[in-house]
C-alpha cells in the first residue's frame, strides 16, 4: 500500500496485484477491489467536488446508496466508484463539479 495511507491490507497474498491510475498517479490494487476501495486503501480521501457548492467529498457508504463516490472511470463521467471493480490499467479521475458535455462532433468531410 502507498505510504501516507492509514489503511492497511490483511495479509492475503492470494489476491492478484493490479495497477490503475488516479488523476495520473499510479495506484496499486488487488483483484476484487472496487475502485473506491482501492483508492481508500491507497490513502485517497477526496474523490470529487460537488456541482452545487464545489466542496470536496469522498466515498461514504461503499454500497451504491449515496452517490458520493462519483468518478470518471475510463473516460465515463459520474460513475459510482464503489460499484465498479478494478481492472488492470484502468484510468480513473476525480470529478470536478458537474459533468461536462462536448460540442457536436464536426461532420466528417472525408
Amino acid at each position: 500500500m502507498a505510504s501516507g495511507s492509514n489503511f492497511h491490507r490483511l495479509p492475503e497474498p492470494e489476491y492478484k496485484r493490479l495497477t490503475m491510475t488516479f488523476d495520473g498517479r499510479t495506484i496499486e490494487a488487488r483483484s476484487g477491489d472496487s475502485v473506491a476501495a482501492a483508492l481508500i486503501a491507497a490513502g485517497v480521501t477526496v474523490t470529487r467536488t460537488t456541482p452545487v457548492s464545489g466542496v470536496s467529498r469522498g466515498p461514504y457508504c461503499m454500497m451504491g446508496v449515496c452517490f458520493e463516490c462519483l468518478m470518471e472511470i475510463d473516460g465515463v463521467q459520474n460513475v459510482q466508484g464503489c460499484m465498479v471493480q478494478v481492472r488492470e490499467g484502468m484510468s480513473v479521475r476525480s470529478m470536478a463539479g458537474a459533468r461536462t458535455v462536448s460540442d457536436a462532433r464536426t461532420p466528417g468531410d472525408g
Partner: protein
Amino acid sequence: MARPSYDVIVVGAGLHGLSCALNLAREGLKVVALDKDHPGRHASGVNAGGVRRLGRHEAELPLTMAALEIWHRIEQEVGDSCGFVACDQIKVAESGSEADTLQARLLRLRELGYDHEQWIDADELRRRVPAIAPHCVGAVLCAGDGSANPFRTVMAYRRAALSAGVEIRENCPALALSPAGSGWRVDTPQGPLDGGAVMNCAGTWGNTIARALGEPVPVTPAALMLMITERLAPFLKPVLGAAGRTLSFKQFDNGTLLIGGGHRGTAEPECNRSRVKMVGLSISAQTVGALFPQLADVRVVRSWAGLEGMMPDDIPVIGPSSRADGIYHAFGFCGHGFQLAPITGRIMADLLVRGHSGLPIEAFRIDRFAAADMAAMDTPEQRISA
C-alpha cells in the same frame, strides 16, 4: 331561498382553477375553490414548465400572446417570480421536408399578422446550440418565451388567491351538481356548497361535470411523461423541440436536463394516478440520442407522468356552458395549458362579470363537437350526478 354563500364555486384548484379564483376575487367576488386532492397534485404541479408560444394552434395565438405578457410581469401578478426565466424556444428541422413544413407555417403566421416565430439556418442554429447533431438543417426560433417552476407557480397562485380572499378547500371533491335557487349547489364530503356560479376547472376530470350537464366532450385522459438527468455543465440555453419528433428538451440553471415528449404512460384517472411506461421513455431517449449523440452516457435520475385532458382538435374548452346558466368551463388543455393559465383566469372573470371576454374564444366552445366525435369517445371515468 337565501342568498348563496358564495358568488362562485371553482371546481378544481389546479393552475386554471386558481387563476380563475384569483381573478374573480380581485373583482370583489366571494370565491371558494375546491380540489379533490390539493393544488398542484396533478398536471399543474408536475408539468415541464414551458412558457411557449412556439408552435401554438392558431386559435390559441391571441391567448398565448396575452398570457406571455402576464408571465413577463408575473411577480406583480402573484407576488413571486414563479421561477420564470425568459429564454428562446427552438424547433429544429432534421430534413428539407421538415424545414418546408416549418416554413409553410411561418408564412401562414405572417398572413395572420404574427411574427414571433423566425426561421434560422443551420449555421445560426449551431451558433445557438453548439452541441446539436450536424444533420439538422435549420430551425424555427421564438424569442422571448421562457420557462417557470410549475409547483412554485401553483404555490404562488395559491398564496395570491388566499390573500385576495379566496377560500381553498383541499381533499374536497365535488360529488354532485344541482340547481339551487338562482344558482347552483355542489355536494361535497364537507357538506353542500351554494354558489351563484360554478367554474369547471377540473382538468383531466372536466368531463365529469360537462357530462352531468348533458354536454360531454371527447376529452381523453393522457399520462404525459417527463424525465430528468443528473447535472451537467451548462451547454444548452434555449428550450428545444423537433419538427419531426415529439420532444421537449431543456437545461435548467442547475444543470439538469428535462426531457419530455408526446409519448404516453398509463393513465388511470379513475384511480387518480398515472405511471410511466419505459417503452415511451426509451423512444424519448432515442430522440435525444439522434439530436445529441454525445449525451449517450448521461444518466436519467427520475421520470414521472402527469394526467392531462386531451381533445381531438388539440385545443381546450373555454367558455360558458351551452346548457346551463351560471356554469363556465375551462379544461382539457391538451398538454400546453401551463403557459395559458394566467390569461384563462382573466377570461373567465370577464365572462362572469362582464358577460364577454376581450379575447376571441369562439373556437373553444364546448358544443363544437359533432355527434360522431362523441360516439367515438371512450372515457372510463367515474360519473358525478346532476
